[in-house]
């Protein structure tokens, strides 16, 4: 859990500085109202109750909201396994083998088909 808390902190910090990489300005311009900002809405997504829900929520939310789960078709075990593996192998999700099994099982039980 400690590892995840740290990662989430990184997420928040890097969100804040994501835009501040404009580089040195050759000829500084000063325009009034030159900063344009938006505030993204907090969209609440509820995952179904079930064994492994907290793990799924914690790990998946590192990189994306859980509507990335709820809007998917009801996939069989093979597809959910492939998806969780892709998150670990391609995107580097810090999920242990044991947790990957728990999360995959949660996904196929609550958002799966054909078991």
């Amino acid at each position, binding site marked *: 859990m400690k590892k995840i808390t740290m*990662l989430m902190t990184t997420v928040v910090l890097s969100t804040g500085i994501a835009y501040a990489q404009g580089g040195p300005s050759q000829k500084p*311009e000063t325009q009034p109202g030159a900063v344009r900002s938006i505030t993204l809405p907090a969209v609440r997504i509820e995952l179904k109750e079930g064994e492994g829900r907290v793990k799924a929520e914690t790990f998946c939310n590192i990189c*994306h909201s859980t509507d990335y789960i709820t809007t998917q*078709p009801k996939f069989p075990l093979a597809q959910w396994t492939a998806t969780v593996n892709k998150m670990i192998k391609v995107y580097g999700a810090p999920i242990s083998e044991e947790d990957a099994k728990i999360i995959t099982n949660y996904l196929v039980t609550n958002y799966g088909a054909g078991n």
Partner: protein
Amino acid sequence: MEHKRFTRRDFLKTAGALTAMTVLGEMPLDLLAATDERRLVRYPEKTDLILLTSRPPQLETPLKYFKELITPNDALFVRWHIANIPTSIDVNQWRLKVGGNTEQELQLSLSDLRVRFEKVTFTAVIQCAGNGRSFFEPRVAGGQWKNGAMGNVTWSGARLKDILNQAGIKAGSVDVSFNGLDTGTLPTVPDFIKSLPVDKALEDDMLIAYEMNGQPLTMLNGFPARLIVPGWYATYWVKSLTDITVLNKSFEEFWMKSAYRIPDTACGCVPPGAKPQKTIPIHRMTTRSLIITPEERSGLKANKPVDIMGIAFSGGYGIKDVVVSTDGGRNWVQARLGKDLGKYSWTQWSYPWRPKKPGTYTLMAKATDSIGGSQPFEGLWNPSGYLWNKVEPLTVVVR
């Protein structure tokens, strides 16, 4: 007896179940109209759009906006790939860096883009590669778009060619890569960087756009400037650009090498469920059409005229004709084409129809572009859910 609150969601669920169980002809019309029960959300600078995902946001345009030739800025779909998206930009600090295998490096401000380069304006369809993915059978993973991951927008900006020529492309250049402000939440998440072959990047119609429909880009559509690759899917149209890099070798990173690839076959398809032997980066859009009105399952009256109206576009070849069928594809008639805004724009079309007898009718539209490209009657399948352009039957009830 306990009274439960009957929410809109409950209503829609009930409507869906009733529609499935009941003969269409006996349904009240207001229930029939409820065909899309997906959740609406309002993001900054946007109207109510259909929520696919919230972070990173994927927001779909409701079909009603496609009744217009030009899609309003606040209704245009939104699609980001990695979660740290720009939410605040200081235009005084923002620069577009152009370099790599060039004679000199440029650091262009937004006013440099406006003042130092000729302003070019044209209308072009922007469409997500995965538009229509939810119609694939067997279903595939990814954003479950219906038809709303597209729009027709008038873009203004500087020619990419003019910018690259000012930097001076050196001999031996192969690809040009494009990076924007978005980043992943973990260092292991591949940064969203796309590339074009240098010859493509030097075509006349590639833009670095700073206006959409005469206004600055909305933040969620790539403020302050984005790449426009008209005729090609929007995956290339990198938002909130910061870096254009000319490369003397092929660009080999994740979003070109592993993602956004289609089977290397003539149709870009494989048999449903099959794995392609070889893949290539997705590029030009397939030709397609869509019926916008009447809406699916809307109730019509016998002998009352109704305009069947829709849109059609191609991968940059213009639209030569659109044919319409009101009997499930047995007979076809020519639709009248609307105003021509150029080969990258969509074309509105219409056909005045007067259904003679009550009954259930299957409407279809099929577009052909100026080089003969058209639409299949069966959905062409690929593992990532790209290139959707099937002739889609639409059922209406006439009483």
